[in-house]
């Protein structure tokens, strides 16, 4: 019996048991469609949320003083003048002296964390922001004493429910270095697009509530004039390593060696690493369901062998060889899993687009994952089909004929 005859006869016997074939396939369909769905959504999140971050952070690096180091002395503290020194390098676009502060804020009865980042004049050169409403601080406002802030658009949406945030106030509480609680009310002058944020509910899990405040005001608010970091950016990212080395040397010229840690911006990398891990985990779960689907195929094929013992006996009596019977059953299980796999891909893509619309992240389906899924499902068809097919092929024709 050749292959085409085998496929025809497998198709016929599956067609005769339509309901059972469909239910068996369902296991594979669910497995494959969840693999496709999960990877599509995962890739969608990666590309939507991370692409902006990635583009804006190429060539960025940060300078920090390692205060935990035993050799650290007071003179090693990062100062605004250090940022000016770095900015003087012609290969540098800009250098922002920066301090940050996490504070708790009561938002709709929930405690949330707000990340306050200092802002300096011209800081957009290193860390560009898009203002959706209002404006950034003016040069004058950086030196004035008025309590002004800008906030990100997602935080603004949560605070003011779609109404304009401009001119509204935000009261922030903190505990200063002398353990004295204090609070201050700030006026919002601008709303910028959250660079890591997304409108989608999934994206918001990873989104920080960002507040920008002129550097001197944040220092005052914190009660400390220490800088956390200097964030800088090079013009040509291929020179980044050279520039980082030169800056380290320059900073160490008059101070303690090996105190300064200069790192390429890895915020995006670590963020995408977390996403990768989450995606891997979800895919593993999806593959487990695929495995369960495979066991379903094996189960049904074993039942089908038992049910069709007589048929096997008849086929053998009239001349079917062991391998003809083996091929027949194997083709049936491969057919189930391959067709199930293809349907799974189609359903997965449809579901992915549907979920994508709901969470406002367009899914990204790669050819690679589609090929892998169909490959895995065909493999499952073979792997889980072999046991029943072998069982069928090795049946003794006399016993098989005698059974009812």
């Amino acid at each position: 019996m050749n292959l085409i005859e085998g496929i025809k006869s497998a198709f016929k016997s599956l067609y005769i048991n339509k309901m059972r074939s469909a239910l068996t396939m369902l296991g594979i369909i669910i497995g494959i469609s969840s693999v496709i769905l999960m990877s599509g959504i995962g890739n969608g999140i990666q590309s939507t949320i991370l692409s902006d971050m990635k583009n804006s952070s190429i060539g960025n690096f940060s300078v920090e003083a390692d205060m935990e180091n035993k050799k650290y002395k007071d003179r090693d503290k990062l100062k605004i003048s250090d940022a000016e020194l770095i900015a003087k390098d012609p290969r540098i676009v800009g250098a922002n002296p920066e301090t940050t502060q996490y504070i708790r804020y009561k938002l709709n009865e929930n405690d949330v964390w707000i990340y306050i980042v200092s802002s300096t004049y011209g800081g957009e050169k290193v860390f560009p922001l898009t203002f959706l409403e209002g404006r950034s601080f003016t040069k004058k406002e950086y030196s004035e004493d008025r309590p002004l802030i800008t906030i990100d658009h997602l935080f603004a949406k949560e605070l003011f429910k779609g109404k304009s945030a401009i001119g509204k106030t935000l009261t922030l509480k903190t505990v200063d270095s002398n353990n004295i609680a204090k609070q201050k009310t700030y006026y919002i002058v601008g709303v910028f697009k959250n660079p890591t944020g997304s409108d989608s509910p999934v994206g918001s899990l990873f989104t920080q509530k960002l507040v920008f405040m002129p550097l001197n005001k944040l220092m005052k608010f914190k009660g400390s004039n220490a800088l956390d970091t200097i964030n800088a950016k090079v013009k040509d990212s291929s020179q980044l390593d050279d520039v980082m080395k030169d800056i380290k040397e320059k900073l160490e010229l008059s101070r303690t060696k090996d105190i300064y840690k200069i790192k390429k911006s890895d915020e995006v990398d670590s963020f995408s690493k977390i996403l990768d891990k989450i995606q891997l985990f979800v895919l593993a779960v999806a593959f487990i369901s695929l495995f369960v689907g495979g066991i379903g195929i094996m189960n049904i094929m074993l039942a089908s062998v038992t049910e069709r013992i007589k048929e096997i006996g008849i086929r053998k009596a009239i001349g079917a060889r062991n391998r003809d019977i083996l091929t027949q059953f194997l083709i049936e299980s491969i057919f189930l899993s391959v067709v199930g796999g293809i349907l799974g891909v189609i359903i997965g893509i449809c579901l992915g687009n549907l979920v994508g619309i709901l969470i406002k992240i367009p899914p990204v389906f790669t050819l690679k994952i589609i090929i892998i899924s169909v490959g895995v499902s065909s493999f499952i068809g073979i792997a889980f089909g072999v046991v029943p097919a072998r069982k069928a092929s090795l049946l003794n024709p006399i016993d098989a004929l005698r059974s009812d």
Partner: protein
Amino acid sequence: MINIKDMRKVYSNGKLELEAIKKVNFHIKKGEFVAIMGPSGSGKSTIMNILGCLDKPTSGEYYLDGVNVSHLDDDDLSKIRNDKIGFVFQSFNLLSKLTALENVTLPLVYAGIRKKERIKKAKKALESVGLSDRIHHLPNELSGGQRQRVAIARALVNEPSIIMADEPTGNLDSKSEEEILEIFKGLNKNGTTIAMVTHEPNIADHCKRIIRFKDGELVGDERL
């Protein structure tokens, strides 16, 4: 054509051993119509299975068309069954989901014959048993006699050396029984060798020769 030499068949089930066939010798020549008779437990079904290459003897030789088939492996036996043997069973053993024509073409599928040729041969075989007008019927749309005729067509379609019939009329009414026996006689007249297991003397009387078994031994061989 069939030559059985010192054949024994022992079934062993752990400790228990049952000698179903005890050292049997006989020939069947081309063109014979042989009835194999005996009470149940006499070993006639075992002989039938071995003659039909569904089973192997424990010892002794079985020559079919000059080939010693007693030591062949499963696949070679399948090929012999496909080429040289046509089966007709008491319970018809048609595939219930296939039409009469598809059932009859099945041996040709395993013989690797092309579709056009298969259908031509199968139609011819069905015609020879008088079922030309029923070729697209499923077995459960046919009467018992018609089903058995489909089974005979299937047994014939590969032009086998011998047709093995195991109580072919056991499930049939007397009218159908008559029909089937007439078909067998007609086939035999045209040169087909037939071996038929039966326990009914009136059916055996249609044959040209009767071989009798009792307790695994050949106890009688008469020509009518």
